[in-house]
Structure formats: structure tokens, C-alpha cells
């Protein structure tokens, strides 16, 4: 799951995650989307940029 807040500054970056993923999967440039979503500091940007969603992969092993 996407962390609720940025590890460094504490901004609620999880709010932006769903839209970010949709738009990037739709072929938009990740950097532009991040700026669009109001994530200007690089600590917050790397949170979304480097996130890998794993809950689906873990589910069968419950």
C-alpha cells in the first residue's frame, strides 16, 4: 500500500496516488503529473515515483 504520508516532510501523498497511477498508466509523463498534483518537493515526488503496489501479489498467500 502507498504510505499515508511522505517519509521526509509528512505531506499526505497517498491522496494523489490513485490519480497518479491512472494517469501514468494512461501514458502521461510522470514528472508532469506529479507537478500537476501539487507535489513540488522532491521528497514527496520520490514517494510516488518509486512505489510498487504489492497487496495484489500478496493476496493469494494469505
Amino acid at each position: 500500500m502507498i504510505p499515508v504520508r511522505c517519509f521526509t516532510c509528512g505531506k499526505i501523498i497517498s491522496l494523489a496516488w490513485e490519480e497518479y497511477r491512472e494517469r501514468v498508466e494512461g501514458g502521461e509523463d510522470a514528472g508532469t503529473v506529479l507537478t500537476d498534483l501539487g507535489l513540488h518537493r522532491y521528497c514527496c515526488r520520490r514517494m510516488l515515483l518509486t512505489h510498487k503496489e504489492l497487496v495484489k501479489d500478496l493476496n493469494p498467500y494469505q
Partner: protein
Amino acid sequence: MDIVFSRLGDNEARFVLEGVSDGFANSFRRAMMSEVPTLAIEDVRIYDNTSVLFDEILASRLGLIPIRTDLSTYRLPSRCECGGAGCPRCYTVYTLSVEGPCMVYSGDLVPRDPAASPVHDRIPILRLFENQKLVLEARAVLGKGKEHSKWQPTIACGYKHYPVITIDDRCDGCGMCVDECPRGRLANGKGKARVIPERLELCLLCRLCEKACKRGGIGSEPAIRVDEERSRYIFNVEGDGSLPVREIIKEALLHLKESTRSLLESLDEIAGGTSDEESE
């Protein structure tokens, strides 16, 4: 002491503070971060959790959700009449009951006190798949940021010295500093570089412009100099929504006032005691 706001919104403030020492500026910053209480979920009673996340991770995620805080309604448990045992003045309760498949959001938490609802409704807490279920009860209390960062009312909260830029006569307007500045602080004009006044406060004090100027072969001293004005600070305060920034600033200043007052009182006690003895 002088304070000039250039921006004051609900969740963000930018202001210039003048005529104070480094020590005061820093205590002010730290008071805003760690001495202003907010509500955050502290205890979670989990009745059913068949999701992929462990109870502990789930509880940690719940704790990080910012909650609207009314400081006139709630008290710190340590300062409450109940003595910390728990009463409606020092905690509030949320219930959550969801069945998958779906995404569980912060908005699914049902607050007992509607005024103390989560700031955002769309914070993803966890994903539930087929036949998974989550039933829990959470209790939020007031706390301070110095204990756990979930109680910090601020996100980014910091200051820097006020920049002073001087460009001397040796400048030949080569424009290398202008190209180098990451904040677009400088411009070229009339054969000489100049500072764009509206962008002055954006300066990072990175001194890349000085380096660029030296690289241009002007000598050992650059024609442009970046200095910091002592005792003048640019503050940037961002709130997480639990309290309006205006209130964070006010509460932090009240805390500083209160702690200096109690220090003075104890000093008075000590000094008063000795002077009495001397007069006898």
C-alpha cells in the same frame, strides 16, 4: 520584533520575521512542530481483520491520518480532570466496518464527534479482496509532535535567512549567473546583471551564481555576492489540515510565552528566597 505575512492560507503561511535571534527563530519553529497538540488515532481495537495487512501496519496507517482538531473541545489526557483515565473531553472514537472487495478510505471511519472527522476522505487505508473483512474501533487522543510525528500539526516547517545580493561594478553582463540560478532570481539588463525584486525571497542561498561568475574568469572574487541578513528570517509553514496555520502560529507563541513565564517564576522563587534571607 516585526512580522510581515506574504501569504496566509488555511494550510500554508509564508512570512518574514525580523529583529529576533537565531535562538528565538529556532524555538519558534520547534514550538510549531512539537508543542502544538493535535488529535491522532492512538489505540485501535481490531475485531476482525482478514486483509493482507498486519494489524500493526494497519494501526500505524490509521495513526497517520490527520484529524480536524478543535483545541477548545479536547484536552491533553495528562491535563484532563479525569487524570488520563479517559473521558469524552480527552478522547473520541471512530468505528469502521467494511467488507471486500473494495478500497477502504479514511472516509469510511465513522466519527462519534462529527467535528473531529478526518481532514481528507480519500486517503487509502487498505485494499480488501473477495471475502475479506475489516471491523475495528479506534480511539484518538490529543498529543504533541515531540512524542510522535503523527501529532505534528505541520508538514514542512522551516526558515532561512533573508538573502542580500550585491552586484558590483566589475560585472560585464555576461549572463552566466542568470543562466545558473535555479530559481530564476536574476535577470540581465543594461550590460549588467540585476536582481528581480519579486523573486528575491525565492533565493536558496545556494551561491551557484557566485561560482558561475568566477568561472567566467573575473578573478578570485566574483562580481556578484550572496549574503544573509542576520536577524531577518523567511518562514515557510505548511499545516496538515488538522489545525489552521494561523492557530498553529498562535498556539506556538502562547507556548513560548508560557514556558518563559514559568522559567521567570522559578527564577523569582530562587532569587526571592535568597534576598529574603539576606535581609534578615
